[in-house]
């Protein structure tokens, strides 16, 4: 009695354990795949801004031009305020820019005098005068004493009535001097340098810096930046929010009391500026969505577009194509070779020691690190076989596919071998007893009966071929380049692209949606290929079973 009870308990514990492990496995899968799929899908489904539509129009020729122009006009109106606020502030603080302006006016005026063929004496006199004005202004710009500035500007302005300067480009001196005097009255002059650097950073965040795109994109009228990605603002609302955050807040290392360690403090960036610029921050925060017009966007062309600026814009079309090409060509090698080898091992090979060594070799090959296959592919296919056959020794799809085929052959051979071995001997006997040759028996009876198992091998090798990176590093994958025209061209692939983005530079941090999009596409592609193979296997299996 008691024994029976214990047995029942043990059975229940066993059931519970197995159920629990399955639940755990599911949870782990969901925990891994869920966030990945969520982030990857944001490459296609996201809030696209007006900058995105501008980019699509200019780079890919998509979208309604009239609607876009109306939208751009609307947003530009609101942006103008931002430009004005920044320009007004810069007049008072950017001494280097002001000095440069003054020097430019001085040069212009000299040219003007030469063009007018002014007599030599007067020319010398006027040059001397303007040089003095220039130097005075530069001194004023660099001064930190408001009284000194006032004195210098007053001295300059005395010359405003000089008839020789009236109506010439020298008048700009006086306009500049008045503006500066006004702006300088509102700010702490000792912080000139600090303000200049801070406003430059703000401009970098709002417009663009030398290497990073900004929130709103370049200002109208500015010469186009050499990098395409700098020519547009935040194309996605999530990107815009990151930039907005960087615009509104600043992280600083602060020592609160002497002797204590530094702590990272987050404070509003507005505090870095004098009162005169503070409205800018409130304005941008309030009007960001009106300046960018985020709108729900489905960018399915992600799957067919080529990329621009190493995946900053655009999609992964060539990568998908390359992955499929490499997979198909690889499978063309793996399937026949794998089945023939397995057939030989099962049907023809005797159990001698050579066979044992071959079998051991196959099993060992299955465990060799994939990078070793990559180097083997480079050394054997690219550098040895291709020149020997008269082809150019360069990495290409064919070499990559053959390397991947070598990598997956052990898997394919073992799966097929198992499948062929598990075909009942009675099928074979029946066929042989009807007078069939061994070859015919294999083709007509054993192979069809082993097909479901062989398809399992196909599924396993398919996943490996589509997903492997290391074997194609040196044999056929490139991170940039034209879409391949034949198997003798190298190609981009999803696996290599993911790797490249991950190790490349900070780009992946700026466009995580594209990186995740690529990875998720790879996973989905493998799932689809596997799904097709599984459906095929089920159908074959059903047909064999006679349902």
């Amino acid at each position, binding site marked *: 009695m008691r024994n029976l009870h214990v047995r029942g308990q043990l059975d229940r514990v066993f059931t519970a354990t197995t159920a629990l492990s399955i639940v755990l496995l599911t949870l782990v899968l969901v925990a891994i795949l869920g966030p990945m799929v969520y982030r990857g899908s944001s490459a296609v489904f996201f809030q696209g801004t007006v900058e995105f539509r501008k980019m699509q129009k200019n780079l890919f020729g998509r979208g309604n031009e009239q609607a876009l122009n109306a939208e751009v006009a609307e947003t530009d109106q609101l942006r103008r305020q931002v430009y004005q606020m920044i320009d007004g502030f810069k007049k008072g603080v950017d001494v280097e820019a002001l000095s440069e302006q003054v020097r430019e006016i001085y040069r212009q005026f000299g040219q003007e005098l030469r063009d007018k063929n002014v007599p030599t004496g007067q020319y010398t006199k006027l040059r001397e005068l303007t040089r003095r004005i220039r130097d005075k202004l530069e001194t004023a710009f660099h001064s930190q004493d408001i009284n000194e500035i006032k004195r210098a500007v007053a001295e300059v302005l005395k010359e405003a009535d000089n008839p020789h300067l009236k109506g010439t480009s020298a008048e700009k001196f006086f306009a500049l001097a008045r503006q500066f005097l006004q702006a300088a009255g509102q700010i702490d002059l000792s912080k000139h340098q600090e303000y200049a650097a801070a406003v430059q950073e703000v401009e970098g965040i709002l417009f663009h810096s030398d290497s990073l795109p900004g929130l709103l994109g370049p200002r109208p009228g500015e010469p186009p930046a050499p990098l395409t990605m700098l020519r547009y603002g935040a194309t996605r609302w999530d990107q815009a929010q990151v930039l907005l955050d960087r615009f509104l807040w600043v992280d600083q290392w602060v020592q609160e009391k002497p002797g204590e360690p530094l702590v990272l403090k987050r404070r509003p960036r507005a505090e870095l500026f004098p009162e005169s610029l503070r409205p800018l921050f409130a304005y941008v925060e309030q009007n960001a969505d009106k300046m960018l017009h985020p709108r729900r966007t489905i960018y399915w062309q992600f799957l067919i577009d080529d990329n621009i600026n190493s995946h900053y814009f655009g999609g992964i079309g060539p990568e998908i194509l390359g992955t499929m090409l490499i997979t198909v060509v690889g499978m063309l090698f793996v399937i026949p070779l794998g089945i023939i080898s397995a057939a030989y091992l099962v049907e023809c090979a005797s159990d001698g020691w050579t066979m044992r060594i071959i079998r051991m070799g196959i099993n060992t090959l299955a465990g060799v690190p994939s990078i070793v296959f990559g180097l083997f592919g480079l050394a054997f296919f690219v550098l040895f076989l291709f020149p020997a056959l008269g082809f150019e020794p360069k990495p290409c799809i064919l070499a990559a596919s053959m390397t991947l085929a070598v990598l997956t052959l052990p898997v394919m051979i073992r799966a097929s071998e198992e499948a062929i071995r598990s075909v009942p001997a*009675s099928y074979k006997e*029946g066929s*042989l007893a*009807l007078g*069939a040759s061994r070859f015919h028996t294999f083709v007509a*009876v054993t192979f069809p009966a082993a097909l479901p198992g062989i398809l399992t091998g196909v599924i396993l090798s398919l996943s490996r071929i589509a997903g492997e990176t290391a074997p194609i590093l040196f044999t056929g994958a490139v991170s940039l380049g034209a879409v391949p025209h034949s198997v003798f061209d190298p190609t981009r692939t999803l696996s290599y692209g993911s790797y490249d983005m991950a190790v490349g530079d900070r780009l992946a941090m700026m466009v995580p949606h594209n990186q995740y999009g690529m990875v998720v596409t790879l996973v989905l592609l493998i799932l689809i290929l596997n799904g097709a193979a599984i459906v095929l296997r089920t159908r074959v299996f059903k*047909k064999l*079973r*006679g349902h």
Partner: protein
Amino acid sequence: MPEEKKEDMPTSVLRDDRKKPNVRTTIVTIDRKETPAQPVGDGCEAAIIRSENFSLYYGSKAGVKNITMDIYPYSVTAIIGPSGCGKSTFLRSINRMNDLIPHVRAEGRLLVDGHDVYEKRTNLVHLRQQVGMVFQKPNPFPKSIFDNVAYGPSLQGVRNKGELQNVVEQSLRAAALWEEVKNDLKKSALALSGGQQQRLCIARALATKPRVLLMDEPCSALDPIATGRIEDLMGQLQRTYTIVIVTHNMQQAARVSERAAFFCLGELIEYDETARIFSNPAQKATEDYVTGRFG
């Protein structure tokens, strides 16, 4: 073609394209039921399978030793004996199915239709088409019923669809399966019941138009009803084919065969008319076996 009775169909159609040697024609005309049992070694001309001091070794171990017996056409010959006595080995030697086992070596002579099957120049394909085989476990291929039966003929090079259909129908009729499956020839053979599968295997063997049908315990995996049907079928088939059957079931041997051979420990102990083997055997061992005292 004139209307014929169902069981006569295969007789006429399956065999009318075959060139029969004179010897056999005479035998066909004899009413076998009245033919006196011929002692072993007599009537050499008539035997279709002759075994002369035939031995078969697996490596150094003998499977069968010094078998000398004649098997006569258009009859059912049963081979009985305890497990491991070499009955199946002998049966499989006739169409050389033992070749699949490594290190097999044959001695003596085994003639089918006057040709030594263990000669080097024996065409295995031809031999196996002449000597069909039905196995212990029904082993239809995982294909449709039609493809199963058409397997042999298409091996022989029959490509014509109509001709294939003809052969399939005749073979299935000969195996008494036609009426049950004629409407779903495209169905998988594995969907049939065990007895049907075994009859399908018989039909498959008949489709190559063999002269001899070897049956290796064909009913051991079947229930009594299916067994009964197969036994009835054998009764019909022996008019057209030579059947050699290995069986464990002595009642079956008594029911279906005209002659019976008793094997023990790889040797042929006694070979005689079935009636005599079961009622009045010459050897003590045989008597012990058939009366259930040993084996």
